[in-house]
């Protein structure tokens, strides 16, 4: 089959996360494709609204839920705004899964701290549910999540669910000024919240996703906590078109983000030129 031919998917469910972020639950129209489809947490796809074009989003649902995939999309560009005009039942195109993934096998038997800001929780959410669905295989699970303001927190129902769990610790915060009168979480920037959470670095992995400014100030905290560069993971979000190492758009130095990434360790990131 032509590499650029997408599978067709049906929108099964639409969830409003924030005023401009929606989560789409999608199912393959062809049952054979659905049965054969596999992916790993961290991988992405090229989603299309026919007539508008393709866009790159991570798969935000875990591979342990086999019947569907989800993506969470902020309405900012041509395709994402077109996506917003669609209703349940509409047809989308999907190519993927593409790219590498988080090192789940290496993480087994270890502790994991998830750190996310804003919509950066989407790629992390796939891994969080993957780990929670296989909870016995991991040690401590800590989730540190923040957003600018309460309205910008995504997956609110799931945050409530994680807060209830006894086998995971959730720390959530909004930036100063972003709180509402009934806000029960912290009021702090993510790096400060991480210091408060103070997860142990022994035998632990850290996964960080969020806006560049958050990542910039979070990494030194992780280092101070004792996380080595090769156990800190993040994702690069470069503009892409093909997703399969042909179109030349996502290069960062020698790296094709679509094929060598999108998941990188901090050790790998430090080798890259500042071209992202």
């Amino acid at each position, binding site marked *: *089959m*032509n*590499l*650029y*031919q*997408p599978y*067709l998917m*049906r929108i099964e469910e639409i969830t409003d996360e924030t005023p401009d972020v929606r989560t789409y639950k999608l199912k393959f*129209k062809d049952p054979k494709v659905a049965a054969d489809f596999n992916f790993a947490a961290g991988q992405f796809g090229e989603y*299309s609204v*026919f*007539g*508008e*074009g*393709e*866009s790159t989003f991570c798969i935000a649902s875990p591979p342990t839920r086999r019947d569907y995939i989800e993506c969470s999309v902020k309405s*900012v*560009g*041509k395709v*994402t705004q077109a996506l917003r005009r669609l209703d349940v039942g509409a*047809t989308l*195109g999907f190519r993927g899964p593409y790219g590498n993934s988080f090192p789940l096998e290496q993480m087994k038997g270890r502790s994991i701290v998830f750190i996310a800001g804003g919509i950066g929780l989407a790629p992390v959410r796939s891994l969080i549910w993957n780990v929670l669905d296989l909870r016995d295989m991991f040690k401590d699970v800590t989730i540190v999540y923040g957003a600018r303001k309460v309205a910008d927190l995504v997956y609110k129902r799931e945050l409530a669910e994680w807060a209830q769990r006894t086998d995971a610790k959730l720390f959530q915060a909004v930036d100063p000024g972003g709180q509402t009168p009934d806000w029960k979480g912290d009021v702090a920037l993510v790096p400060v919240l991480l210091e408060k959470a103070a997860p142990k670095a022994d035998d632990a992995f850290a996964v960080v996703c969020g806006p560049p400014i958050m990542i910039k100030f979070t990494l030194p905290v992780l280092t101070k906590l004792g996380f080595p560069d090769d156990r800190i993971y993040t994702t690069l*979000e*470069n*503009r892409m*078109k*093909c997703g*399969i*190492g*042909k*179109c*030349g*758009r996502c*290069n*960062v*130095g*020698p790296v*094709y983000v679509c*094929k060598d990434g999108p998941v990188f360790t901090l050790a790998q990131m430090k080798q890259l*030129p*500042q*071209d*992202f």
Partner: protein
Amino acid sequence: MTPKIISESALAALVANLVAGQVRVIAPVRAKDNPEHADYLPIRRLEDAAFNGPLPRRSLKEFFLPPTEVLLRYRQHKDGVDLEEVRTTFPPQVILGARPCDAAGVEILDKVMGWDYRDELWFGRREATTIIGLACPGVDDSCFCSAVGLGPDSTKGSDLLLVPCDGGYLAQAVTPKGEALLNKEPLQAAPDAAAGQTVEALWQGPREKVAKNLPPVPSTLPEWLAKSFNHSYWNSLALRCHGCGACASLCPTCHCFDIVDQHEHYDQGERRRNWDSCQTGKFTLHASNYNPRKTQSERFRQRVTHKFSIYPQRFNSLLCTGCGRCARVCPAGMNLPEILGELTQLAGTEVKGASE
């Protein structure tokens, strides 16, 4: 297989046979609007071709990666969307009289088009095409094929290479496809013996002529470039560059593309891939308005680095064939061979400086 001599008339008969057999034959042809220019165009007979004419304006890239091509067609209806696949097999075509720099560009691009994911649209056309290269006399001072490991009689990318000689062309098969062609009527009737003529001896003059333009790019350049991302050389280099991307359009190896939907009627349209260039400001622009390459200097650095560091480190081949089109066409006078010369000097001094 020993080279053989093909007469002009045997070659003309070959073209006639191919055309009669519904094979598209493409050759350099003098441009209708200006006979000082040439383009690669379909021909009906050999005399339509301008073998001794100027370098064709555009490379051969477009015969394998068209400037715009349909990836799929869609039709929306109340129950969903119907997709129509495009074919990935193509009718046979022969490119006759390819410049060695243009033929080499096609082979270099096989690497990126074939790693891991195989681009069927590219390879469908590759398989349907036979490339007959023609040794090049050297165009002008902008030629620098010999600086990038090729030469005016390089066989890279050609299935068969023709070198003008006494009595016609010395023909050297490079691939099984080229050998098969050489064994076909009417070329089979050509005398096998090359009468003591060798490509080496025949094309020494052009090789020497081109070699004067630029010394070979050193094998250490890819590594030096990878380390020199923040070198001050880049800062002011591209201040005069317009970011028009003409260099990339004419380049035999620039292959970056965009994928867009072209909505045609209220319920249907096409998804297309179109040539794109890292020289345009929108190339890496995020929907959020963030752009990792804000300045033209950053974009020009990407072009040079992709060709002389990223691609060689990944695919073991420079992403440049030294055709010189980018230097000739640039409205702002950006000159890649000159830049390469300067980078080579910088790399040499700094590597030497570091080891002292």
